């Protein structure tokens, strides 16, 4: 899906003589993500990742007696613990090539085209809401690699377990690592019979005035 969108946009930008700098930046980020993923990252089979994650999550659900709220919380906490370390890994892999994010839209694009691409090799669609100042990452049908092969049992589905809630924790903690405070949450999931999987970032504020090193 996302690749189709990108190819359309590149075609468009080549035909229009005056190229929108935003588009240019977007394309640069896409190429950067692709480059970093192909050159700097070791790969592992996605299905193996998927099966491992699934087995661990099931163990967690068993441990919490199918209490979806606790599981969501725990997954998010684990994500935060990962995120605080992941941000260092991120900067060491992209090696200062990443442009500074001047606004919220840039931030969303960077996370989607470089962050998601680098780690889980999938690019979500970015939906930026100017008025509410929120960013949504949208995975269409089963593009979210966590969800492949998964079907939640009915009782857990009713309790609204967000299966890949670990991602929201990772984003939150990673942004905290570059001095941005925000709320990240899942608002829909294809596993819960929604049409898309949506992750939303809202209430982005800067923690301190100074810009930390490396941004």
């Amino acid at each position, binding site marked *: 899906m996302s690749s189709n969108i990108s190819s359309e946009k590149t075609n468009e930008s080549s035909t229009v003589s005056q190229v929108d700098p935003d588009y240019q930046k977007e394309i640069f980020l896409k190429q950067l993500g692709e480059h970093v993923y192909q050159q700097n990252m070791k790969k592992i089979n996605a*299905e193996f990742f998927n*099966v491992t*994650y*699934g*087995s661990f*999550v*099931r163990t967690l659900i068993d441990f919490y007696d199918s209490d979806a709220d606790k599981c969501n919380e725990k997954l998010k906490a684990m994500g935060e613990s990962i995120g605080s370390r992941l941000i260092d890994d991120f900067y060491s892999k992209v090696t200062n090539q990443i442009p500074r994010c001047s606004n919220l839209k840039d931030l969303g694009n960077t996370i989607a085209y470089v962050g998601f691409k680098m780690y889980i090799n999938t690019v979500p669609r970015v939906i930026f809401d100017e008025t509410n100042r929120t960013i949504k990452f949208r995975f269409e049908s089963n593009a979210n690699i966590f969800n492949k*092969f*998964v*079907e*939640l*049992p009915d009782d*857990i589905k009713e309790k609204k377990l967000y299966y890949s809630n670990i991602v929201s924790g990772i984003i939150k903690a990673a942004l905290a690592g570059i001095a941005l405070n925000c709320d990240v949450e899942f608002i829909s999931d294809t596993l819960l019979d929604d049409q898309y999987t949506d992750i939303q970032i809202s209430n982005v504020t800067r923690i301190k005035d100074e810009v930390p090193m490396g941004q």
Partner: protein
Amino acid sequence: MSIPLYFAILHNKTDSALYETFLASKDSLSAEDIPLKDLYPFIANSAIDVIDNIQQANQTNLPYNKTHLHQKVQDLVEANMNSKVEPNKTSFFVENILVKDGSNKSLVQKVTNTHNNPQNINSLPEGSLFLGTIDEYDGYLVSSYVTYNNTKFMVISDKNHVMNYLQLQKFFLNVHDLYLKHLMNPFTSAKGDMPIKSLLFDAKIKVFGDLYLLS
């Protein structure tokens, strides 16, 4: 107008049924009209021994020694008549099996009166998943397929049904694909023998059956 096919998926360790159904074409008879319909599970269950024998001997050509099989079916039916079979052991709906009145004996006689007229499939490769027609039981042919982890698929047809082995392999292959998708779901217990309840699984098997076996 033909007698419906019986199809079952048997669990690899416990040999209980994960899924079973009758496959019938559109103008087929109703459930009451299927002769000996309650006997199918017993035949399927008994044929497990034959499969085990094949796998131990690494031989895929008929004829196998089948005397024990006939003995086993007979034993099962008789044990059931005397209510000695524990339901969990045979794993099928034993308590409902045919015989609750005096008509039992004729059935047993019919069962034991078998003709050795097996259909053969030549030259299967060593270690093949598809085992061809492994047994013949009073005019009922048992065809089987074993997945890598030893889950057994079984089709029982009556001898008037013309079985095309190419189509049968295609059917099994597609069911294998479907079964794999079921297995890959982290919420299906890989060790346990919970039956498959998915509606879509059910519907797809039926369409495959109609596509490959009944037309």
